[in-house]
């Protein structure tokens, strides 16, 4: 029995985890608690520190400050192999001179497990991942998707407490990525282990994770379920990073329950006065006929048709650019004059520093 068998607290706790390289701060006091069995996505642009955080959890890099607890044990001073974590690397990191069977069995061989048990476990993982026919092949004889599965298999055979995945799908083509995404979710449900998944692809994060940790410049911007992050972004960065096309943002100020900026519209009375950034998702922008009294006059500059949806890029009379998402069958034409309505209930407000302003309804 391993120490993790009787433990029932959080799977992973990060307390003020920081990483500096000289004077450069790569991670700035990250706090995070991950429940057992949870699928967490670390999402953010390149250089935001998400892969560094993953390596710190794996023990492949030393942290400058803070504590990492895995299954209730302080992991700071444990070797990678002692942390009971398995990692899937971006470029798979398969041993090129070993067959698929040897690759998958390597961690078990290293822990001194008897050869027949290793064979049985590798066979089991291979059937789970449909790799039985490839067991005697070398990595360079496999397709990208198969290599990806071997890397997963090498992680699975160990039955680790935590899976760490560093952009594991980024080297696959678009179609295969969608397939593997679903396969990973199925696998997570079946294996049920805590998983931390690094990605810069918001679609991966939104579709796979129970919760998303959105990062920028080494700082956690928001932690929440995909729905929370999308509906109530914590700041303007989150509002524009998540969602495609991103949220429309307009700078201005509030006074007398009115937004004054490149256009003036009424806002809920609860919004406090002062400089603000007003935000609205493209799908919430309503297009009505030109001349509508309550609408903002605008001209359609570009119509981007992407199948089920169409994105309308428009300019208001005062020069503000607005994007709307409409039905793909819409007959909107470039150059057409329309009017826009921004429903008050759908508006988000961010203060001068870019942070979300709480209004009563949202608590």
């Amino acid at each position: 029995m391993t120490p993790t068998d009787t433990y029932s607290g959080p799977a992973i706790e990060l307390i003020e985890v920081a990483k500096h390289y000289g004077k450069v701060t790569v991670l700035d006091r990250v706090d995070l608690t991950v429940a057992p069995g949870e699928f967490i996505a670390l999402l953010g642009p390149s250089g935001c520190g998400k892969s560094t955080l993953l390596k710190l959890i794996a023990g492949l890099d030393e942290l400058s400050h803070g504590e990492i607890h895995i299954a209730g044990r302080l992991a700071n001073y444990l070797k990678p192999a002692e942390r009971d974590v398995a990692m899937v690397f971006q470029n798979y990191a398969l041993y090129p001179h070993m067959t698929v069977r040897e690759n998958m069995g390597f961690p078990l061989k290293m822990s001194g497990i008897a050869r027949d048990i290793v064979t049985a476990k590798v066979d089991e993982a291979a059937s789970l991942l449909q790799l039985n026919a490839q067991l005697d092949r070398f990595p360079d004889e496999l397709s990208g998707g198969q290599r990806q599965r071997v890397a997963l298999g090498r992680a699975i055979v160990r039955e680790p407490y935590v899976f760490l995945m560093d952009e594991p799908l980024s080297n696959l083509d678009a179609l295969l990525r969608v397939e593997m995404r679903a396969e990973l979710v199925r696998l997570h449900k079946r294996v049920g282990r805590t998983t931390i998944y690094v990605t810069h692809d918001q679609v991966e994060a939104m579709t796979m994770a129970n919760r998303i940790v959105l990062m920028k410049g080494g700082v956690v911007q928001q932690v929440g379920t995909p729905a929370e992050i999308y509906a109530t972004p914590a700041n303007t960065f989150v509002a524009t990073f998540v969602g495609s096309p991103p949220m429309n943002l307009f700078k201005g100020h509030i006074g007398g329950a009115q937004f004054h900026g490149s256009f003036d519209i009424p806002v809920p009375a609860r919004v406090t006065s002062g400089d603000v950034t007003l935000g609205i998702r493209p799908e919430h922008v309503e297009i009505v006929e030109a001349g509508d009294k309550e609408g903002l006059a605008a001209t359609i500059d570009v119509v981007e048709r992407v199948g089920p949806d169409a994105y309308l890029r428009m300019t208001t009379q005062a020069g503000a650019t607005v994007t709307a998402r409409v039905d793909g069958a819409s007959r909107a034409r470039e150059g057409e004059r329309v009017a826009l309505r921004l429903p008050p209930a759908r508006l988000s407000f961010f203060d001068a520093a870019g942070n979300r302003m709480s209004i009563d309804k949202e608590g």
Partner: protein
Amino acid sequence: MGLDARVMPAAPSGRLRLAPEEHRRLSRNRRLRREVLGWAFLAPMFLCFVIFLVLPVLGTVWWSLRSGGLGGDTKFVGLKNFIDLPDIVGASAAVTNTLVFALISVPLILVGALAIALLLARIERGGSIYRFLIYFPVLVPGVVAALIWLFMTNVDFGLFNGVVRGLGGKPVVWLGADHALTVLAILDVWRNVGYWALFFVAAIIGLPKELYQAAELDGASAFARLRYLTLPLMRRIIFFAVVVATIWGLQVFDTALVLTSGGPGTATTTVIYRVWLYMFGATNKIGVASAISLVLIVTILLLTLVQMRLLRGRRGGD
């Protein structure tokens, strides 16, 4: 599968602006220009290859079939020089000395170089200083290296005996019949270990870091990572080093000449040294010298083939 004009559908007449013959002529001209350019670039290398390698080897074959000395009258004797080889003066001693020399020096050079390389690859700061120090003996000409070692191995005031005396031992005659060949081999290790160490460092640094991170997570100890990753991944480079170091080892000459003059007696007379003696020494038999050289060339070729077979294995580390 080549294109066959007979099964190709005929192009609608009048669509092509050039006649098929004209297309063939232009395409032939284009190929010819490319080939001429390619050969023009290769020509200087081929010229050097022929002048400095093919002609000397052919010359050696010609001389090996003749008796007499350099500069004197020679006559054709057929394969007599080869047939007499086993009985000529000092042949067996030279072969034994050369083999013993290579057996001591080559493994020590390669194992030592690999060990140094593994350490050098771990150094993050100031690595270039260590690399220079390790590589320095490589820059020293063989003759100078032998002179340095002549001083260090001197019975009365040499560094080696200084250490032996310091440890309370009796002075050793390093270049006596018992130790001279070993000292010569160690001198070769000193001269060449840095070269191969640097060679291996470059290879080790080039190995993918993620493989090592994965292995660390998989629970592989430092020794296991060396055994299961580094050595298999460097297999082909190590093979190359074994072949080349062996070839160099079998050709040792300059240090043997300066350090011990092949002695005492024939204790350090190597094959090439024997060739030199027959060629330019008192015996002056260029035919015998050429025959020995040819046998050495063929031996090295065969050895390389055998090593290639032995070390040819699984993929990885290309």
